Every structure is written in structure tokens, then in C-alpha cells.
């Protein structure tokens, strides 16, 4: 069961090998992996929309989609058909080339990231030895595409959304990259496969630095993919829909798709880096991975269902004044833990982290004016 998909691929390759030359077999090995990743991306996005609507619906005391198919299971298909048949509107002053290119190009990095995610034992499409750096490099190109979309629409709301998004993504990338450093210190490799293997005995989230790094990484990840409560670039109540205001039909759907795929890869990466990836007892490895990833995605939807949107200055303050110093202290704590080792290292890391957490939250406390007492005249 554990190696189900790996065996399936090997069987297919074996079948091809019966009548085809060697080079065709290696080519089809590549194509099978690429095809699987692509279909997985689309499939995940379609059913994440359904899951999001169902979960949010339940949180708001509704049932959510339930008319198309059993439990609304065919709703994503209906949505896709609707999106594909909708009219494609390009605003008259828009830059036609950029308006066309932006939605196409935003999906590319989102799909490329899937290549380094270890979906299970021996199930990484491309186990690069710089896997983690690859993830950061690919996700950093998204910023430019969002900018293209905002600028190409020639719409002030779109431009504002693009600018907000760039400011947000650049700010949150800093603590995000720094929060991963302790993991690299501990594992000594950037390869996602090696990181998962290093967590065979102990998931990193169970160490003090791992816990803080996990929370920082996850929060920054939520901000990176513009999800609530960090959805300022597309805040409906302020700037219509942000950078994708002027996109309709399938172009809009592509933005939506990239967003959901990014959310999935953030959840998957958090699971890989801190929650032990595919490690787990009894169940097959890929099932463990899916379970962990989807519970993190559920947390993201929970955020959306419960938290109000942050104000721009609160959001920037969180990244620069709270998460960044905490991530830096975290590197120190991880170094101490790894250098001292044993209970002494654990305790010192915990003390440093808790102390700085309390200190930072005290320094960052927003100003609350004293309660005024109104004395009514007799």
C-alpha cells in the first residue's frame, strides 16, 4: 500500500519498455511525473474550493454547496464549465499583452513548486539538493506576475492591489526564509526528502525552536498567498478585488487556481518541514502526508472563518516588529539546543524563546487609552 503510486508508475514504465526503445521509457518516466503533478494541481484546486465553501458554510451555520451531485461533489466541475464559457472582458485602456500573460504566468510557479514536495516515501517528483531554495525562488517570482496583472489592467484598484501585494510579499518573505534556517541547521541539507528523513524519531514541531519556527512559517505562508486575515491585496471592502479586479472568466479562475495551489503548497511545506512530512505509523506514507496537509488547510479556512482582516500598518508591524525578531532569536535558540544538546539545550532554548516572546509582545502592545470615567451631573 505504501508504495502504491510508485509501483503503478513502474508498472506503466515496464509496459512501455516492452515495445519502446530505452530513451522513450526515460522520456515517458519524466512525462508521467510531470503529468501527475499537473493533474494533481488542478484536482487539488478544484476540490479545495469545494472544501473551503463547505467549511466556511458550516462555520457560518449554513450547509454550503449541496445541489450538484452527492454532497455537492460535482460543484467544482459545474464551476469550471461556467468559468470556461464566460465572456472574456478586456478593458479598453488595458495593456493587452500583459493582461493576457499575467494569469497564464501566475500558474507556472505555483505548479513548479509541486515538483519538490515529498508526497510520500520515494514520491518526490524532483528531489533537488537545493529543494527548499527552489521553493523560495519560485514563490518569489509570483510577486512580479501580480504586479503585471495590476499594472496591465490600468485600473486604480488593480494597481493599488498590486502595490499592496508586493509590499506584503516582500515583507513576509524575510521572516519566512529566516524561520526555516533552524531546520537547515539541524538537518544540514536543503533537500526536502532529507528534511523528512531527519524527522523519523522526532518531528521538529516538538522542539521549542521547531514550534516557534512552524508558527512563524505558517503565518508568513498564509500572508504570502494573500489569504485571510492577510488578504489586503484583494480586500473586497476597500479595493474591489485588488489586482484581479479586471479579470473575468477563465483568467480569473487561473488567479484563483494559483492562489489555492499556493495555499496547498504552503500547507504541504509546513507539514514537510515541521510535522514530519510523510512519517507516521500504520497508515501508508502518502496518506499521512495528505492528512497533515489537509489539517493545515483546515486551519487556514478556520482563520478565514474567524479572524477579521488586519489593517495595513498592523500587518506590516506584525512582520517587521514581531515575526522578524522572533525568527532571529529562534536561530540562536536552535543553535543553543543543537550545540548543548540534551535537556540543558532544550531548557535554555525554551527559556530564551519564551522570554523573547513575552518581551516582544509587551513591546508590540498597541496603545490603548485609559478608560475614561464619565461623571454625570446630578
Amino acid at each position, binding site marked *: 500500500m505504501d508504495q502504491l503510486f510508485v509501483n503503478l508508475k513502474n508498472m506503466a514504465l515496464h509496459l512501455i519498455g516492452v515495445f519502446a526503445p530505452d530513451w522513450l521509457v526515460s522520456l515517458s518516466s519524466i512525462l508521467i511525473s510531470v503529468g501527475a503533478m499537473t493533474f494533481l494541481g488542478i484536482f487539488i484546486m478544484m476540490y479545495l474550493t469545494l472544501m473551503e465553501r463547505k467549511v466556511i458554510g458550516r462555520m457560518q451555520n449554513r450547509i454550503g454547496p449541496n445541489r450538484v451531485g452527492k454532497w455537492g461533489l460535482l460543484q467544482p466541475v459545474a464551476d469550471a464549465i461556467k468559468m470556461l464559457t464566460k465572456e472574456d472582458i478586456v478593458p479598453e485602456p488595458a495593456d493587452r499583452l500583459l493582461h493576457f500573460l499575467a494569469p497564464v504566468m501566475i500558474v507556472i510557479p505555483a505548479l513548479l513548486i509541486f515538483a519538490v514536495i515529498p508526497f510520500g516515501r520515494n514520491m518526490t517528483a524532483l528531489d533537488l539538493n537545493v529543494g527548499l*531554495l527552489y521553493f523560495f*525562488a519560485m514563490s518569489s517570482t509570483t510577486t*512580479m506576475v501580480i*504586479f503585471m496583472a495590476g499594472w496591465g489592467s490600468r485600473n486604480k484598484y488593480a*494597481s493599488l492591489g498590486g502595490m499592496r501585494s508586493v509590499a506584503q510579499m*516582500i515583507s513576509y518573505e524575510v521572516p519566512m526564509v529566516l524561520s526555516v534556517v533552524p531546520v537547515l541547521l539541524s538537518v544540514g*541539507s536543503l533537500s526536502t526528502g532529507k528534511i523528512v528523513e531527519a524527522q523519523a524519531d522526532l518531528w521538529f514541531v516538538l522542539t521549542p525552536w521547531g514550534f516557534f519556527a512552524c508558527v512563524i512559517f505558517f503565518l508568513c505562508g498564509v500572508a504570502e498567498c494573500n489569504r485571510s486575515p492577510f488578504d489586503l491585496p484583494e480586500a473586497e471592502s476597500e479595493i474591489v478585488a485588488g489586482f484581479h479586479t479586471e479579470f473575468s472568466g477563465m483568467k480569473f479562475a487561473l488567479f484563483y487556481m494559483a492562489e489555492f495551489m499556493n495555499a496547498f503548497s504552503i500547507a504541504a511545506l509546513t507539514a514537510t518541514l515541521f510535522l514530519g512530512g510523510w512519517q507516521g505509523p500504520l497508515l501508508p506514507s502518502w496518506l499521512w502526508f495528505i492528512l497533515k496537509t489537509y489539517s493545515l488547510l483546515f486551519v487556514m479556512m478556520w482563520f478565514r472563518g474567524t479572524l477579521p482582516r488586519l489593517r495595513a500598518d498592523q500587518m506590516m508591524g506584525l512582520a517587521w516588529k514581531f515575526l522578524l525578531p522572533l525568527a532571529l532569536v529562534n536561530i540562536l535558540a536552535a543553535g543553543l539546543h543543537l550545540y548543548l544538546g540534551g535537556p540543558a539545550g532544550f531548557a535554555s532554548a525554551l527559556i530564551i524563546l519564551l522570554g523573547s516572546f513575552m518581551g516582544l509582545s509587551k513591546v508590540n502592545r498597541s496603545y490603548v487609552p485609559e478608560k475614561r470615567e464619565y461623571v454625570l451631573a446630578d
Partner: protein
Amino acid sequence: MESLQVLVKAGIYILMAAGSLAAIGAVFFPNLFYAGLSLAGVLICVAGIYLSAGADFLAMVQILIYVGAVMTLIIYAIMLTNIEEIKVSHLGIKQILLSILAVSGFAVLTASAILSIDWRPLSGQNRLEVHELGAALMSRYIFPFEVLGILLFAVLIGAIVIARKDKV
């Protein structure tokens, strides 16, 4: 395996051609935004060439720093200026002559550097692991590394000083 090698080679040539085309575009596009995007295309193609040469780390850093950070900054700067108001300025003969001189000087320099390198592939393993890179930075190249650190620190402080509100 032969056919696959041919495919890979064709891919590398396509990458190089695309990079050169984008470089020409970066120079000749009258629209600054397009020129900036072409520059990003050049940088991505160069990263692809690094990848094909087995320099994974360099390729990823190239994309992360140049495409992710520097290009975003350049495009941000372009976006803050109103594109329609920028007029293409015509260069005088003096400027053209000067630039030709400068460019040819640079071309001679790069050509001499390119010709002086022995382009045969290194024997044995030439794929550098990331931890070897880190070890080299911390031992053999510690001095330039520290100097760069001080430089960046000074830049950071300078940026804060410039961005700080003046006390009234």
C-alpha cells in the same frame, strides 16, 4: 539515450536564443515596463543555463535575488513613474561616440576574460554540494564574507537613516 541528449541540447540552445532575444528586447523596448520584464526574462534564461551546467544553487539564488527582489524593485520604480509622460530622448553624437567607446572597452575586457579560460569540463565530480559552499564561505573566503556583511549592515543603517522621519 542519444535522442534524449539531442533533446536536452536543443533545449539549451532554445534557452540561449530566448535569453539573447529578451536581452535585445530589454535594450530596445520603448515601453519601460516591457523592457523591465524582458530583463527579468534574461535573468530567468541565465538561471536556466546555470541549471543545465549543474550549478543548482547558483541558479536558484539567481532567481531568488534577481528576479524575486531586484526586478520587483525595478518594476516598482517604473510603476511609480507615469509611463505615458516619459518621452524617448534622442541622443547627441557626442553621447553615442562615448557610449560606443565604453561598450567596446567592456567588450574587449570580457572577450579577453572569456578567451583566457580553459573551457574543458573539470574531471571528476564538478557538482558542488551546498554544504561545501557554506564551509568554503566560513573558512577560505571568511574575509570577503565578513567585509560584505559589514557593507550590507552599513547599507541597512543608511536606509533606516534615510527613511526615518526628521525630528521636528
